């Protein structure tokens, strides 16, 4: 017995019966199929929406590559300038202090002497 041939003969007869399914059965199958396709469509939209949002920033950067590089360079220049400026000010301040110390009436050691500080505080409070 050729099993394959026999099985196909049986199932050919069964295939023919598929055309005779009742209308209410066919309607339910169609409804189920439509619901499934709708669900698949919703899932596809959701995943596309998520993908769009994650890709937006990357796409924008790619499109405005030159502008982005320009902005980054300008920011670096400004930051460098501010740092250079602030370091220059510190040096000037130190120079002023040194000049004040050297041109003052008191010797430099007087500013480091705790006794002098106490004496200055007490004379302030006495006045």
């Amino acid at each position, binding site marked *: *017995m050729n099993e394959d041939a026999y099985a196909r*003969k049986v199932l050919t*007869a*069964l295939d023919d019966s*598929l055309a*005779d399914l009742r209308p209410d059965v066919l309607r*339910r199958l169609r409804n189920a199929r439509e*619901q499934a396709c709708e669900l698949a469509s919703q899932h596809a939209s959701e995943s*596309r929406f998520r993908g769009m949002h994650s890709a937006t920033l990357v796409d924008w950067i790619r499109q405005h590559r030159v502008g982005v590089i320009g902005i980054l360079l300008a920011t670096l220049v400004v930051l460098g300038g501010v740092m250079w400026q602030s370091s220059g000010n510190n040096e000037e301040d130190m120079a002023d202090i040194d000049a004040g110390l050297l041109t003052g009436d008191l010797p430099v050691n007087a500013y480091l002497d705790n006794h002098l500080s106490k004496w200055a505080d007490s004379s302030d409070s006495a006045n």
Partner: protein
Amino acid sequence: MGGGRVSATGSLDRFLAEVERRAYRQAAFAVRDEQAALDIVQDAMMKLAEKYADAPQQEWPLLFQRILQNAIRDYYRRQKVRNFWTTALSFFASGHEDQEEDDPLEHVQSTDERDDPVHIISAGKNIAMIEQAIEKLPARQREAFLLRYWEELDITETAAVMGCSEGSVKTHCSRAVHTLADLLRNKGIIDE
């Protein structure tokens, strides 16, 4: 991009339209209940759409069959639990002497009532007999037979869907064909 989505949904629609009737018949052979069979097919369609709509389309037939067979097995499990509780409750409700009348196997055997000649003639003689013969096959033989020959899965794919070895698939198929041949020969249709 939108066009691609529409065509993907269209492909899914075409695929489901192609397999839905056979899927329904498979489920109906297995569970012998039209409404339950329709529910099973609907569940299988929804699961395929929800989880595998993005999968390559050539994988859909195997995935759908796997989902469908799992849904049928889930139905069997639920029925088993339901039958257990129904039997247990009726045992307590009607007393010990009635327990043999509620043997679940009797309900399974009751489909033999369809051998009634009047029913066979009204439903389309040969096809009804073939359907009955397929219904009478043991579950695993029927599953292997329908997957292998009706869904045209190869032996490896059938084994993957059924969760058994390729040798078991061959054995189930062979036994199913011989049993069918005996049943149909006895009814005088489809000679070898």
